[in-house]
């Protein structure tokens, strides 16, 4: 059953990508070429800039701000991914009376999060979260 699901998902992923691709090829190229809808010309193909000729190429050396957010995102994403297996080990969370472990699991994740919260606080203080 388990193997079946995985291979099924695999098929779904392929279908998911193939379908819009095929649809686009079929409709955008096939249909439009057959019906003669595809009549590009220089003015039509000009990138849209509110009706004026673009003054400059669009691809320029761009902003540094997004970069920092992306870095922070990866770090927090890794953190979340560490949390997930921990959260699923429900033994961690049995009430204290049924277990000898005495809140060990919660305390562990608390320490983990506190250390990372320092990171967030540092970023906050350093102005890394400001959109200057």
């Amino acid at each position, binding site marked *: *059953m*388990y*193997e*079946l699901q*995985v*291979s099924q*998902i*695999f098929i779904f*992923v392929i279908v998911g990508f193939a379908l819009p691709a095929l649809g686009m090829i079929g409709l955008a190229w096939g249909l439009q070429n057959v019906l003669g809808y595809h009549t590009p010309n220089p003015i039509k193909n000009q990138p849209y800039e509110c009706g*004026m*000729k673009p*003054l400059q*190429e669009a*691809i*320029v*050396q*761009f*902003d*540094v701000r*997004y*970069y*920092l957010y*992306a*870095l*922070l*995102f*990866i*770090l927090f*994403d*890794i*953190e979340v*991914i*560490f949390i*997930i*297996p*921990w*959260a*699923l*080990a*429900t*033994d*961690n969370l049995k009430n204290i009376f049924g277990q000898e472990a005495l809140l*060990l*699991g919660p305390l*562990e994740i608390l*320490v*983990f*999060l506190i*250390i*990372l919260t*320092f*990171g967030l606080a*540092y*970023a906050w203080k*350093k*102005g*890394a979260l400001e959109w200057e």
Partner: protein
Amino acid sequence: MEFVNVQELVSTGVAEALAFYFIAALAITLSIGVISDKNVIRAGFLLIGVFGGISGLFFLLQAQFIALAQVMIYAVGITLVVVIALMLTNPRLQNEEAEEEAIASSEPALLKFLDSIRNGFPGLVAWIAFVTVYMAIRSEHWEQSTQTIGEDNIAVIGRALTTDYSLPFEFASVLLLAALIGAIMLAKAEKVEDTDTPREGIESGSN
């Protein structure tokens, strides 16, 4: 309503093998695309395919957790960081490089040879690294595990994290903290004030 035949087909491993070769071919093609594409940003975007393929391989190995983490962190996060970082590069530099190449091709033979050595050096290092890793993998005798994988293997990881590996788990957070501080230090480096040249007037009727 049992799925007799489809399941049989899958469990024979034929489909699995086919899927493996398909994904592996995809990942390798795309990674070659990544290193050979002239346009760095497009090369960055191709990374999503490479990481996606690797994630597919993990899926086939039934390591769903790692496969999905691969998608979330690498295929999305790392790709975005790489692409955004590449947008910080100057697109005009590529054209300049092409010009430099054109100049280089008119140089004397000896210089050209030295240049080719210089340019080939990173490739050489990569090859050496690849061969080393390959040899290491081949020299190890890998046993085939007969253990079946439980459906709650993520919970198993979680349990391990709280019992046997709780210290590494905490260290992971310290590592993340260090990485975070490092990232902020790098990106928020002291800014030197621009000495801006006065703006040239834009012709209002220029087109």
